[in-house]
């Protein structure tokens, strides 16, 4: 496989990989690095890829594993920079004012979800994958995916309704 063929093949889902990585790693730079790293890995394994029917789902699964590894190594070392940044943002006054921007609020609500629900929301509501693909990527039964998704959506709804009603009254 030539480089140009490979790039043509991965081009349609490079943004999905990037957004997925960003959802898990939070920072744009980390996500960019992860995306580069991932495509390099795919390129090195190009012989194997040919055997996969669904390269995109395979790439997303690899992204998940890669991000998990990154998060783990960050916790093991003391590079918790991204997360402390995030917490600081949460408490700062500026952020509280920004909360009134409800689109930003949705972002924060999703980031607060457990890792698994976060991924499923990303894959379903933003990337519109079907349940079979999602269950492959996150390595869960399709019914379990639905349960987690429903839970995530309800949590977000509940929080949104709370602030919405609070804003009105």
């Amino acid at each position, binding site marked *: 496989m030539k*480089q140009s063929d*490979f*790039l043509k093949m*991965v081009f349609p889902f*490079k*943004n999905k*990989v*990037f*957004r997925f990585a*960003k959802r898990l790693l939070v920072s744009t*730079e980390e996500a*960019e*690095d992860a*995306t*580069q790293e991932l*495509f*390099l890995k795919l*390129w090195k394994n190009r012989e194997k890829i040919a055997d996969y029917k669904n390269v995109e789902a395979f790439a997303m699964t690899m992204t998940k594993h890669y991000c998990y590894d990154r998060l783990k190594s960050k916790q093991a070392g003391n590079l918790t920079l991204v997360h402390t940044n995030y917490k600081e943002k949460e408490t700062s006054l500026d952020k509280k004012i920004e909360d009134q921007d*409800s*689109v930003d*609020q*949705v*972002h924060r609500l*999703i980031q607060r979800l457990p890792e698994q629900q976060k991924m499923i929301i990303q894959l*379903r*509501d*933003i*990337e*519109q994958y*079907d349940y079979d693909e999602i269950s492959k990527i996150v390595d869960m039964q399709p019914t379990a*995916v*639905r*349960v987690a*998704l*429903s839970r995530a*959506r*309800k949590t*977000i*709804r509940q929080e*949104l*309704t709370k*602030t*919405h009603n609070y804003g009105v009254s």
Partner: protein
Amino acid sequence: MELANIEQLIEKYLNAATSLQEEATLKNYFTQGNIAPHLQEYEALFNYFEKNKAEVFTETIQLDIKKRPNRKLKWLSVAASIAVSVSVFIGNQEYRKYQKEKTFAQVRNALQMLSLNLNKGASAIAKVHAYENTINTIIK
């Protein structure tokens, strides 16, 4: 789209029972701007999904490892150059201090020698004084 239908779809959506097509219908409804008041809290949600999907990977994919600019390496080189310049500065300072101490020790040695010899001279003078005194007492 009828409102009752949207309400039904929302219920299904929360139970994760909607199809991708139905979710597209919901997204269309909530991003067009004209939303029933009691459903307004969903507006932000679907707008967020839409907004998030617009975020793209702007870098070009580098498959050549050598060509890939490494962000960490870049920062590492910045850190290294700072470390080098700081150590050169401190090293230079230390060297100067050492030089000063060396000249100080030399001067101290010289002064000590001087004072030692001065004391020798002074004791000789004291002897002369004692001699003179005895002579004076004898003469008188």
